[in-house]
């Protein structure tokens, strides 16, 4: 098959970005095409119907289902308050009264003659979707949501945790190989998105969370530090829903890996700007990568260089993404068409690349990603 390599992640100083903002259920779109929106503008809202809570009336009253139904004081469709009487019985010449009250406020939706149960539906929960990025409403998806468009810088990461947030970008890291420590995190980073280099210590990550930083963007993190920060392990790479105060985005991977210079330089150039970030990652079935988006006020005169696309060819700049050359950068020098036996004994298609230090290496094509912009 032709795609024996991993497409690169986008690191672009200026590109058109479109974000689809969709409700989980049909509802109402609250903006119009052409409207200017900011990240926190509500663009659509709906109400999610509440779940039904079953009240076991027959069991509570100690009656047969049919008797319990005749003891009901409510009918299907009635609105009930928490603590409201649903049914009662009197026994022993009317002296002993047994009551069944509603544990919740809601609407009576089900009355079962077979079980003597009453189902009460909880009130609906309002759900709102915001624009997430500053931009313009480019399209409306009827009753479902909108497409927001902006021009700006876009950096995709390889993995992230935590959901959508906005903040001001700050770069306390001196260089792309700086490890962020507690000393780098200042109290005035509250509300900011902090950019580091190689990685971040667990102490620094916790400090960033405690002072209210919105996000952290670094090259890599040690696996055990990530688990300690989350409070649980991650089995499958489907993230974004974690209940954490600060979103974390990794641009390179796990362990200690220097942030790609180009990524660091671009983020550094955006220091002080408002950015929207999202840690949501999904590796399977429709890949989603975490991202940093910095809307720019106007399209610069010099448009961004067009991407070379996903084509692997002699001269392509690549990064090796597996041992023994993990993280190294190079340029493709040869693409032999025939499969070759590699050290593991597997016979696969390979490429030859010249690394930055001049060494020429052979690696499986599956183990490189193209660096594109």
């Amino acid at each position, binding site marked *: 098959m032709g795609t024996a390599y*991993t497409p690169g992640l986008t690191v672009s100083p200026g590109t058109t970005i479109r974000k689809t903002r969709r409700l989980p259920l049909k509802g109402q779109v609250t903006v119009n095409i052409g409207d200017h929106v900011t990240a926190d503008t509500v663009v659509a809202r709906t109400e999610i119907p509440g779940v039904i809570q079953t009240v076991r009336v027959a069991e509570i009253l100690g009656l047969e289902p049919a008797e319990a139904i005749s003891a009901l004081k409510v009918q299907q469709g009635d609105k009930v308050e928490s603590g409201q009487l649903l049914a009662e019985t009197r026994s022993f010449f009317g002296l002993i009264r047994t009551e069944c009250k509603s544990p919740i406020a809601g609407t009576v939706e089900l009355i079962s003659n077979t079980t003597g149960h009453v189902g009460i539906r909880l009130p609906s929960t309002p759900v709102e979707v915001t624009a997430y990025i500053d931009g313009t409403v480019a399209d409306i998806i009827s009753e479902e949501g909108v497409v927001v468009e902006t021009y700006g810088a876009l950096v995709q990461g*390889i993995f992230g945790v935590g959901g959508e947030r906005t903040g001001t970008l700050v770069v306390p890291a001196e260089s792309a190989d700086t490890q962020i420590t507690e000393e780098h995190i200042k109290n005035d980073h509250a509300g900011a998105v902090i950019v580091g280099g190689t990685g971040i210590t667990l102490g620094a990550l916790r400090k960033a969370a405690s002072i209210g930083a919105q996000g952290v963007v670094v090259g890599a993190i040690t696996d055990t530090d990530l688990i300690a920060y989350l409070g649980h392990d991650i089995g499958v790479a489907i993230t974004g829903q974690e209940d954490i105060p600060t979103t974390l985005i990794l641009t390179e991977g796990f362990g200690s890996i220097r942030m790609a210079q180009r990524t660091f330089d671009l983020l550094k150039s955006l220091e002080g700007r408002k950015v929207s970030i999202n840690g949501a990652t999904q590796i399977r079935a429709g890949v989603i990568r975490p991202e940093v988006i910095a809307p720019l006020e106007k399209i610069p005169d010099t448009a961004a260089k067009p991407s070379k696309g996903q084509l692997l060819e002699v001269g392509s700049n690549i990064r090796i993404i*597996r041992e023994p050359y993990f993280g190294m950068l190079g340029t493709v020098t040869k693409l032999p068409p025939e499969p070759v036996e590699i050290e*593991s004994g597997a016979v696969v298609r390979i490429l030859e690349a010249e690394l930055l230090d001049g060494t020429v290496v052979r690696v499986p094509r599956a183990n490189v990603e193209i660096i594109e912009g």
Partner: protein
Amino acid sequence: MSELRSILATDCGSTTTKAILIEKQGGEYRLVVRGEAPTTVEAPFDDVTVGVVNAVREVEELAGKKILDSDGKIMTPLRADGSGVDAYLSTSSAGGGLQMTVAGVVKTMSAESAERAALGAGAIIIDVIAVDDGRKDFEKVKRIRELRPDMILISGGTDGGTVKHLVEIAEMIVSADPKPRLGGNMPLPVIYAGNKDARDAVREILGDRVDLRIVDNLRPSLDRENLDPAREAIHELFLQHVMQQAPGYSKLSSWVSSGIMSTPNAVGKMVQTVAQEKGINVLAVDIGGATTDVFSVFNGVYNRTVSANLGMSYSICNVLAEAGTANIRRWAPFEVDEASVRNSLRNKMVRPTTIPQTMRDLRIEQAVAREALRLAFEHHKTLARSLKGVQTVRTIGEILDQKETGETLVDMMALDMIVGSGGVLSHAPRRAEAAYMMLDAYQPEGVTLLAVDSIFMMPQLGVLSTVHPQAAAQVFERDCLIKLGSTVAPVGRMKPGEVACTVTIDNETHAVRFGEIKVVPLAVGETREAIIKPAGRLDVGAGRGRELKTRVEGGVVGVIIDCRGRPLVLPEDNQTRIEKLREWHTALGLASE
């Protein structure tokens, strides 16, 4: 269907569509060529047939024959000029497969039977709901809503038993008002396979709100399971609903000569066919990037389980989480620190298409595979078991053996064949590596044949077995299966260094000490009479210390005499463990690093 001369079969997987061409050559059915192309169920194509046509075009090029007409449709039957095929068949697991929620009254009884029915029909179970599962009603309702299954199966109550709990389950489904994952406006298919006395009540509650099918109770009495009617209903609804909603499937359905089967269902059919034709007990596994499927037939009873989060790429960190780093590191024949294992598996998770370049990296990945296979098999053993809740009259012998109801049907000593498939096994650089991984993960007992499915053809052969069992069996035997060889593994433990068993083949006696592995070369297709004499404490199937005369089969690896003991216990001391692992690698002709 005996007149079939040329058969085309495709399997539309979630990432790749694979096509095979089978033709009758000299009275025997053989695989001619195989082609593949990326599956096209997602944007921008949104049509599964595009991928099918691309895969078939590759088959056309390789076979040098025309199969597609000018409109890109598969031509049937075979024409006089040799173009076209007599039958076109297909399986599919694209679009996330068949995702089901099953519900029952008692978790370990009817809900478990429902789970077995759905798994056997090729479904992925996304939730098992039982009246006694400990969750509150609203939690279950919330869960049904969130998961959006393709289908729900309700079971529970023996015929003539309780009605009330089934009504409760039906009410719960009404409360959730779930919408199917595909095709939002279609009513959700619900199969009722519970107490027949509750049918009217269930119909009254669910009738017009869902697409309700009522079939025979899958657990009519405590001591009897009747899974086939429910499985057939699942298959039928899978074709009518799920397949019709998936992009391009109605078109594909009009092309095939027989209904499209879900991929695991087809693999299960093939495993059952093999077990039945040969009269043997079979264990088969398919270890993928995201999930691991295990199939077994013991004494004619078929079971399938899917471990949805055990796999070698997307789910690799779930193997790490479930097994723990220590269990993975124990298989490495060299020192490796915990942090580097953890970080490298995380990096595989985020870049799932990368492959090991170095031998060390390969050994780590194969260590993970051993744990994924082991965990998926543990899961299988817990579900493939006799019926719980059955009152049986037990003999004194059974009481002394502590046999209970609900015990696993998996009997390693009675197992005749293990078939491994999936990238890490089928594409292991050396076949002995696949044998070694299966030996460690499954620890077969006595005499067992090991094999791998060379190119994962079992789905296509499974669907073929429904229309032409003989053709399926011939291709399976000749072209699909790569026999690695019989393994001889005595059960029990003894002092290391003493002779654990002798195996005499062709008048040559091989004595193997406890703690050692020895490979006796025997070519593919060769079988020999073997006399196996275990040491006094060990058993190879005839009883402790008793000689066994049996036939062993050759393969690309040979006959493997594994005297490491059962259960297999690795040395606790790190250095000794590494030395032992290196010794075993050498015995199998493999480098350690």
